[in-house]
């Protein structure tokens, strides 16, 4: 399968702490890849490196054949940040139309995305007056409106009710079906089952990669939560063993 995002020996230091320890992975084109891991494991840092706003210490990130962050990529990538980044002193419609305009898209596209994320009724409302879930969806709409080839979504379904979550995942599936590459971080294992491929990350290192079924069968469990735990224990046992030998 063709690669959309190639990460090679990526090391990132934030403050005095090394957050990513020389990780390498490939994200295939046209599928949904889930990035799973506990809070503080380096998911957001990896995303920031992919969209090109993170200073990296060493290693490379290549997106669609170009170095991450290059000017051309900024027309082809969409980024949804974990804490919603929209203008709270503008209405939903003004926000989405603004982000659409940066990609030379008009009001019609903006209005249709607002409907898709279920904010049609709130379109004229100031973002500061929205509920937490609506606020996030307004931010998501700003990422979706540009029809990016690569969509980087950091916890896009947090705080959404089950019905909306279902709809959003259908929408992600639909986008992948039309050739977009999606990388979605989550800590809900139920959502991990909906991904085509998974990257499990913990403490800045990749614990395992593979499809949900592959990971489940490798660890001999039907439950991804359990699978993750077993992989972590395996890794800890191995590193403990390594220390004894040294």
């Amino acid at each position, binding site marked *: 399968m063709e690669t959309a995002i190639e990460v090679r020996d990526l090391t990132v230091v934030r403050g005095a702490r090394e957050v990513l320890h020389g990780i390498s992975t490939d994200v295939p084109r046209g599928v949904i890849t889930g990035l799973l891991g506990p809070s503080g494991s380096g998911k957001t840092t990896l995303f920031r490196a992919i969209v090109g706003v993170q200073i990296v210490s060493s290693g490379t990130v290549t997106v669609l054949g170009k170095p991450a962050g290059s000017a051309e990529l900024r027309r082809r990538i969409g980024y949804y940040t974990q804490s*919603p*980044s929209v203008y709270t*002193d503008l209405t939903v419609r003004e926000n989405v139309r603004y982000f659409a305009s*940066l*990609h*030379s898209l008009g009001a019609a596209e903006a209005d249709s995305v607002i409907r898709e994320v279920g904010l049609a009724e709130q379109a004229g409302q100031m973002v500061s007056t929205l509920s937490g879930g609506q606020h996030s969806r307004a931010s998501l709409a*700003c990422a979706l409106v540009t029809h990016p080839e690569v969509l980087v979504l950091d916890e896009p379904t947090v705080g959404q009710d089950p019905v909306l979550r279902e709809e959003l995942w259908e929408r992600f599936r639909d986008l992948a079906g039309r050739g977009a590459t999606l990388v979605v971080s989550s800590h809900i294992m139920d959502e991990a089952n909906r991904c085509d491929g998974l990257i499990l990350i913990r403490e800045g290192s990749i614990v395992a990669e593979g499809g949900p079924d592959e990971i489940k069968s490798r660890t001999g469990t039907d439950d991804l939560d359990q699978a993750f735990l077993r992989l972590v224990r395996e890794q800890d046992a191995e590193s403990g063993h390594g220390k004894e030998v040294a």
Partner: protein
Amino acid sequence: MSFAILASTTGRILRQLRHDRRSIGLLIGAPVLLMTLLYFMFEDGGMFDDVVVIVLGIFPFLLMFLVTSIAMLRERTSGTLERLFTTPVGKLDLLFAYGLAFGLAAAVQATVGATVAYVFLDLDTVGSPWFVVLIAVANGLLGVGLGLLCSAFARTEFQAVQFLPVVVIPQILLCGLFVPRDQMAGWLEGVSNVLPLSHGVEALQEVGLHEDPTGVMWRGLGIVVGAVVLALALAAGTLRRRTP
């Protein structure tokens, strides 16, 4: 730089401002109220014209600095700046958009302020009111440029406001409003000479005293515009697409 992105970003900033009625009230109403106050303070003296022509340049500088530094800081801290840097928006697109949007606000502010001063408060200048407005707008832009630059060195809105006594007030004290610059001690006059607002104020004083634009007026206006360009360039240098 992209014209379309510059235009839509300017529009976005103006829409944010439009939703904030109180800030508009502050920008437009406060100078008018304060000039009216001066009018009654100087009821018996002949100083009013000399003071108000200076004040017409100082208010845009002060208020635009305040509003711009907070607006830009919000952009930095709310995550929208980082998000914009993953889109085709360029650093100069963003900074010029702020300059244009708040420059426009400064133009409205200066026009309203000058109209009130000339029509209702009997302001009298030898030179043309149009030059007063032009120089007042330039002083407003100086506030915008310095505000954009200073916001880079603040982490919170609280810290941004603290630049007021450091960056803005010394310029107001030394611009010639309280003591004529040539009557200051030599070293103070030297400091005053390197502060851009002094030259903006000098240009306004020239309009007050001379019928036709003088060389000193043009020089003062030129220095202010140069300082705006310099501040914007330095502010562009503080914007980083990649951060730690």
